């Protein structure tokens, strides 16, 4: 009986969670993707790992001498 009650409680929680998820408002993938693309395009120039440094002097981790790494 206790088992029954706990299974019931678990299932109630699962169903309630699904009800909440089903109530979410969604937008089409096309407009979601357009927003992602826009954010990236707007910030690409600040992205050093993407576009590199304007000069290696700006790179805080540049090598100060010509030693080989490793």
């Amino acid at each position, binding site marked *: *009986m206790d088992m*029954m*009650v706990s*299974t*019931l409680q678990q*299932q*109630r929680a*699962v*169903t*309630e*969670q*699904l*009800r*909440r*998820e*089903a109530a*979410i408002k*969604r*937008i*089409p*993938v*096309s407009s*979601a*993707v*357009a*927003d*992602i*693309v826009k*954010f*990236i395009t*707007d*910030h*690409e120039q*600040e*992205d*050093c*790992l*993407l*576009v*590199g*440094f304007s000069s290696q002097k700006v*790179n*805080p*981790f*540049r*090598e100060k001498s010509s030693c080989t*790494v*490793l």
Partner: protein
Amino acid sequence: MAGGAEETLAALLREAEALKARLEEERQKLNDVTLASVAERLEAVNFPNLKPRRVLKGHQSKVLAADWAPDKRRLVSSSQDGKVIVWDAFTASKEQTFSMPSTWVMAAAYAPSGNMVAAGGLDNKVTVWALGEEGEGARRRTVATGTAYMSCCVFAHSERQLLTGGGDGACALWDVESGQLLQAFPGHGADVSALDLAPSDAGDTFASAGADRAVLLWDARTPHAVQAFDAHDSDVNCVRFHPGGDALASGADDAACRLWDLRADREVAAYRKEALLFGVAAVEWSVSGRLLFAGYHDHTACAWDALRVSRVAVLCGHEHRVSAVRRSPDGTALATASWDATLRIWA
């Protein structure tokens, strides 16, 4: 009574199945384009040569977690050796070392103030240290005490609150000063492996990943998950918000990284290759969110063009699994941590 309960249970099960079908249908209906088709007209990423710049040596065993300080120069790391190290990444030297009561320190985080670090693991706790300005004796305090191991932790926008996740399948928000539990977030059906906060400064949104193959989205004000994404085929090891804030990347033991859009409420891209067989332990974004970095169990890390869904660079150097990948706060460098006991800085 038992009959009534059975009937209720059957009704709940029926409703759950119907809801699942409806969710799937609704998500599919809005799936009008693929990311790769939209990105086709964008220029390909001309990937600059990301070079290994520093190797941080000092741990005696697997490095399990790493986090940058807001000064873009210091890092905290934790290891299987039971040590937590604060590094100066510029000079590749250790600034402070803290010993933990147990091995396998799986969680480590730097406070956004830069004045505190937190770490925990098999001791079922998260401990914070107030860092002395000159490196003198650090104050130590236990903040979070759980019933299972701690796998991840992150300061929630200030050094006053800490979010943790662990082996009990729950996330939890703690008050750093008092050590009190503020809110528990049960929801994962198995161990929580990773946590990430939404990028907005004051937001209450965070995401968690778990061994139940799910990625969950939470509002820290309520104990129920707001959204659930469950399309990985195995344990999810990592989750990171896209810098735009409306999408998440996750990585799993199924060797795939996936991009989830929160407003479309579904997966919008999967990053995988037949040649990649090993699990993904860590994911990270570049500042713009164009590059998705991933650390793999096959000892490599790589960079994906997130839009064109293609791999653009492979970072080789580690001699064991890559366990953590973190971008410095200003986006000028990438840190990788590995089971080979080192951390590497790439820039």
